[in-house]
């Protein structure tokens, strides 16, 4: 009951926040841009099926959604000192409050993304057949998973960030985003150049399964495009994971761990923090 109350309250606040509204509009513009570009690409000589459009949307999602989830997550979850005192004085466990607020935030961001994807989908489906509808749902799903993972990380970063420490949490969130987007892959590439070909491939495969952003991108692209997504690299990955079932399990475990572990630690830290 309390959980629902907090979730509903957080959802309402988030939907009224200018940040969320701006995100909804910007995301809608970007997604429609990608969808429209899919049809005009290759200089008038072009052909582009929906799988290609979906692939471009996957790249957009794994770039933008983590950033926005981290930023809005930290902004909402780390409270001003006064507000924090009021909220946590309520006779409700801190974990319940945190979980409720996370769910509310998730719902708000999911609504914003639904709006964007809806607009992009309208653009695509007003000029093409229904064959890509499964891909469309996959990209939407990937977007929601990305939101969940990075809201959990945001909760972890803002668990003891009240008052002046909010800025620090925000900075850390930005760093986490850059590390996930660029540095892990760069480090893996750098390491791979030093290793013999087999070990190099192994490093790159691990980097793209264990890093939540890599796992999202790899999983979504494989689902949308099949083994065509990465050419021979797809087969190398499937061989490494002993088949599609293994790949699915690894990616699912990776993403689940990246959601549950930070959320759990966030609750623990929050309970132990002196406000």
């Amino acid at each position, binding site marked *: 009951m309390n959980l629902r109350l907090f979730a509903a309250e957080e959802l309402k606040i988030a939907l009224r926040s200018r940040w969320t509204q701006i995100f909804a509009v910007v995301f809608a513009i970007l997604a429609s841009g990608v969808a429209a570009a899919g049809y005009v690409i290759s200089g008038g000589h072009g052909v582009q099926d929906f799988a290609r459009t979906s692939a471009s949307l996957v790249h957009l999602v794994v770039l933008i959604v983590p950033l926005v989830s981290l930023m809005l997550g930290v902004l909402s979850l780390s409270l001003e000192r006064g507000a924090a005192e009021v909220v946590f004085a309520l006779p409700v466990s801190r974990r319940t409050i945190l979980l409720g607020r996370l769910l509310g935030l998730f719902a708000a961001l999911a609504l914003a993304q639904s709006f964007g994807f*809806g*607009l992009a989908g309208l653009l695509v489906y007003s000029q093409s057949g229904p064959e890509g509808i499964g891909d469309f749902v996959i990209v939407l799903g990937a977007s929601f998973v990305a939101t969940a993972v990075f809201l959990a990380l945001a909760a972890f970063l803002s668990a003891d960030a009240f008052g002046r420490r909010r800025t620090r949490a925000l900075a850390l969130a930005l760093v986490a985003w850059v590390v996930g987007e*660029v540095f892990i892959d760069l480090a893996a590439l750098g390491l791979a150049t030093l290793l013999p070909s087999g070990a190099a491939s192994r490093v*790159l495969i691990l980097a793209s399964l264990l890093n939540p952003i890599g796992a999202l991108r790899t999983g979504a692209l494989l689902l949308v495009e099949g083994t065509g997504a990465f050419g021979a690299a797809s087969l190398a990955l499937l061989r490494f994971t002993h088949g599609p079932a293994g790949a699915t399990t690894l990616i699912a475990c990776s993403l689940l761990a990246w959601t549950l572990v930070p959320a759990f630690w966030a609750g623990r830290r929050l309970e132990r923090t002196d406000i």
Partner: protein
Amino acid sequence: MRTGAIAVALLLGLGVCARAQVDDGAVTVGQLEGRPAPSDLSPLQARLDQALPGSTVVIPAGTYRGDLFLDRPITLRARGEVTLIGSGHGSVVRVRAAGVTLEGFTIDGMRGGDLGRDSSGIHVTGSDARIARCRIRNSLFGIYLRESSGTVVEDSEIVGIPGLDPGEKGSGIHLWNSRGFRLERNLIRDVRDGFYVQSSEGGTIRGNRVSDIRYGLHYMFSDDNLFEDNVFENGAAGAALMYSKRIVFRRNQFIRNRGFASVGLLLKVCDNVLAEDNLVADNARGLFVEGSEKNTFRRNVIAGSDVAVVLYDSVSGQRFESNSFVSNRTPLLLVGTRTDTVFRGNYYTSNLEPDLDGDGASDRAFTLGSVFDHFRGNVIAADLLVDTPAAEALGLAERTFPVLRKIAVADDRPLAKAPELTAVPVAARVRGAASLVGIVVSAGLMLLGLAGFHLGQRPGGAA
């Protein structure tokens, strides 16, 4: 140790695939199918046996069961809908004389015969045959031309046996030792190779449409051939040119070859080839060149590929001039460490260098591919990071501080603006009718989002 084993296994696997590409197309010339057994003969056979050489036999509309054997130069013409249904034991129409013409028949192979005997809808061993406006279905090979020089196949339609593996099917139009042929305006799908041309020189293939195949067009040991204005779509390769010299091709479309190892156009041990004004678009890999010398690619559009050009270091003397490389993920993948390939005066959408002196070319040379692309050529799993910010960052870093040893393939006169290549064909859009399900789902999502935001604004809202 284990990774080593996996890598070796992968490499071996690739090697086997590459070999299979060459080998399983090769023909084992089987025994020639002769006159069908009396029980397999069509009721029309009696008329053919009485026809005088040079005469025209007109077949009235109707369905005729059984195979036909033509051993004299006659013209066989269908009046209205004539369907020839094969016995199911071999080729339906067997042409064993020169100068035979077949016009307007529908031929059903009844999935009969076997590949070793070259069982076909129409099997021709005489020269100067002419096959026009025929529709062939359910046969292993569509039309088989064996030592049949000067033969013409036009305005015909060949649909293979659906549901069979490529290895169990024959080619749409198969040529062996047949010179000076002309194959025009045919429609071919669901076969192994659309056109398979072996040891056959001096032919023309023009204006055909081939789709849902292994290779759209496959030359083996066939020099001095010409193909123009064809469309090759959705196969393992749009066209595969192997062990042939002096092939010229213009204004063809090699499109939508999207399998994980698919190629728009494959050249293997082919010399002095000239490619002009072709469209190579929406392929996993656009051009794939191996073991070939002195080929020229001019004014082609290569668009929407994961890799536009794959070059092995076994090639030499390739020239790419005035082509347009549009929206490819990467323009060049070099397998190996060196190439003498010349890229000059091409246009690349990924070239952002300005043209300040206004001479139509960018002021600086354009380097094809980055250090990341080179890496991709050598470590298989690197493809997992294609299009990621990390790969972009690596490319940018290398351009800014070129400290890494370069495999320099550069175009020193890259065009600043897309050239107008008016002769290059424009692909028909894949464009179904608007999808109701898609529109409803999308509109639903959009409304859900809007409604959420709207309700959230209400004072004390019910969010």
